[in-house]
């Protein structure tokens, strides 16, 4: 009953003309971002942050969240119609989605992808409504040792589940943590690595780093790719799936919702992981798994539902504990901080208007998105005809102005430039930049938690094993860390077979 009352107040907040309009703008922009390859949801959110400066925090987060889950809807369009994933989470949709287009069933694939995304979005919202307040209540019992332990396991999970190998992700996390120490130490006021540069006293600045590394870096590497785009047209009457296709998609949609929601709780590339796991599960449970990759509707329904359901799951640690688990939620957290609000265990109880307003707006947003992605899909498909060489200069300009508008300072532009080049270099050498960005944002929290814990215990590390939750999490982190090291250094199956053959010879 409490949830229903809060939800009622949430709708009261979200159903104002202004907030509906902003939700629409966010969903529209998110869909465009999802459709256009070369720009991810994080860059899409960053580009619109300057537009939120004149808004209150509730309206700002409503719009930015719309971009986040909107991008998951839009990413399937190019996967299905062009065999080019609009988002990394839609890679799997290419396998069967494009095959369906080749068979003239592209419209049905688009319908099922949108329908599944809608159901996954709504079900994960229900999970968010129930779990986030419970998690926040639980997290209120957390002190510095528990906070340190949670962040430690978050980083180890980020390294394990990220796009890259563990051994590539961990140095990126270390680098992000290190650069997070630049500036004034919060506890003593001591200036670290500032070299007398006044602009560095408050740290390097998350916005120019994120904008540079993820936005500018992504554009620089995208301009090197030349894409030949064959865009298949889809007519409105071709959108409806057959009864058989609808029946076949129900199971994957419900399985994808559950899987996506749970995987969304984990740090790292949750959306990508959710869609891949869903695809593997559908292949495993199917009667004819060899048909996957030839145009099976289950291969579209499950992954697309899962990647959207992961958005709801990812909101739980972000809103319930103040720990963003993906670059997109990290940027949303930054946007809230700009508005003077820091998500954490007290966020839901102290800012119920924002939390429940956001939940209600996500319900509204999911309805807006299904309207945008079905009858209006033809409009978005036409966007793909705009050459990237027209788009990228505008994207760069928006990144520059967006960064400048935070502090009205060209120093931030210099930081953007430097991290844009660094982000580009990391992309070229195939090191994932996302763990670096997340670690930079969360680094100060880790350090503060560790130092406060040691101060409380008088310098003794026993504080960590005297707190059961912290002890459990730290042991889990150590086991996971060791497991990843073992997985990385053990000989592969091929090496064993070769050794056995040589032994027999």
């Amino acid at each position, binding site marked *: 009953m409490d949830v229903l009352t809060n939800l009622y107040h949430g709708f009261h907040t979200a159903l104002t003309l202004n907030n509906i309009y902003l939700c629409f703008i966010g969903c529209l922009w998110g869909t465009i971002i999802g459709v256009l390859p070369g720009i991810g949801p994080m860059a899409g959110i960053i580009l619109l942050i*300057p*537009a939120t*400066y*004149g808004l209150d925090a509730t309206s700002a987060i409503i719009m930015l969240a719309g971009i986040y889950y909107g991008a998951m809807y839009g990413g399937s369009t190019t996967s299905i119609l062009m065999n080019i994933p609009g988002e990394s989470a839609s890679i799997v949709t290419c396998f069967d989605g494009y095959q369906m287009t080749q068979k003239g069933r592209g419209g049905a694939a688009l319908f099922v992808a949108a329908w599944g995304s809608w159901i996954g979005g709504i079900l994960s919202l229900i999970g968010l409504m129930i779990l986030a307040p419970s998690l926040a209540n639980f997290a209120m019992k957390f002190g510095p040792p528990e906070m340190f332990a949670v962040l430690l396991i978050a980083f180890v999970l980020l390294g394990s589940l990220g796009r890259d190998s563990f*051994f590539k992700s*961990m*140095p990126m996390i*270390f*680098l992000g*943590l*290190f*650069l997070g*120490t630049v500036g004034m*130490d919060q*506890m*003593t006021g*001591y200036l*670290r*690595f500032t070299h007398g540069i006044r602009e560095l006293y408050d740290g390097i600045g998350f916005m120019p780093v994120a904008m540079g590394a993820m936005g*500018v870096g992504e*554009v*620089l*590497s995208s*301009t*090197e790719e030349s894409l030949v785009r064959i865009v298949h047209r889809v007519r409105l009457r071709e959108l409806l799936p057959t009864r058989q296709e609808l029946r076949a998609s129900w199971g994957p949609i419900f399985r994808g919702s559950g899987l996506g929601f749970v995987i969304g709780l984990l740090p790292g590339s949750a959306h990508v992981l959710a869609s891949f796991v869903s695809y593997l599960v559908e292949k495993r449970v199917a009667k004819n798994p060899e048909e996957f990759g030839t145009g099976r509707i289950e291969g579209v329904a499950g992954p697309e539902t899962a990647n959207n359901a992961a958005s709801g799951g990812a909101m739980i640690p972000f809103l319930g504990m103040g720990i963003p688990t993906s670059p997109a939620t990290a940027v949303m957290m930054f946007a809230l901080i700009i508005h003077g609000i820091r998500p954490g265990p007290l966020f839901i109880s102290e800012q119920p208007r924002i939390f429940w307003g956001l939940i209600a707006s996500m319900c509204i947003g999911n309805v807006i998105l299904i309207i945008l992605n079905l009858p209006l899909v033809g409009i978005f498909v036409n966007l793909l005809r705009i050459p990237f*060489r*027209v788009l*990228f*200069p*505008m994207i*760069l*300009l*928006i990144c*520059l*102005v967006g960064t*400048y*508008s935070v502090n*009205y300072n*060209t120093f931030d*532009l*210099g930081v953007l*430039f430097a991290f*844009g*080049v*660094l982000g*580009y*270099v*990391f992309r*070229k*050498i*195939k*090191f994932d930049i996302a763990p670096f960005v997340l670690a930079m944002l969360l680094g100060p929290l880790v*350090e503060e938690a*560790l*130092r406060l814990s*040691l*101060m409380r215990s*008088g*310098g*003794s590390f026993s504080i960590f094993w005297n707190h059961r939750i912290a002890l459990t999490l730290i042991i889990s982190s150590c086991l996971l860390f060791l497991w990843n090291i073992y997985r990385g250094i053990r000989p592969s199956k091929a090496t064993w077979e070769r050794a056995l053959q040589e032994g027999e010879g």
Partner: protein
Amino acid sequence: MTRERVGSLIFLFFGIYGLVFSLGIPFGSWKRPGPGVFPLSLSILLSISGILWFIVGKRKGGGEKRTEWRKFIKQFTTSFQIAVATAAFILLLNRVGYLLTSTLYLLVLFLWVCRYRLWAATGLAFCLGVGSWLFFGKLLDVQLPQGLFPL
């Protein structure tokens, strides 16, 4: 030069930089850890990561062919052009003003990088430059530098 070695050099650079400068930051004690502990620990981890990746890079690069430098440099031409144009934008922004700088920046990108014809590049740069000025400066009320031509 393998990818792993490039990565290792970046990690080593930050690791050594951190080691050198964090030694001058107070460490405090176990009871009151100072601001130097965390950066020093991370610098050590970065340096170790850098060394390990350098070794991995050396093993992978053992059998590689001689680098064709011209081909290697050519693949970075577009990115280099964009970087130079962006650097010029940043340097000129406060002096010249947003309106002119953004239009010139877009013109350079459309002409030099995208290789549009002069009339197309000029038209696009003008429309998008003025459009962005109106959108950010007037609609979103962002205080853009006036520079030489206050408007």
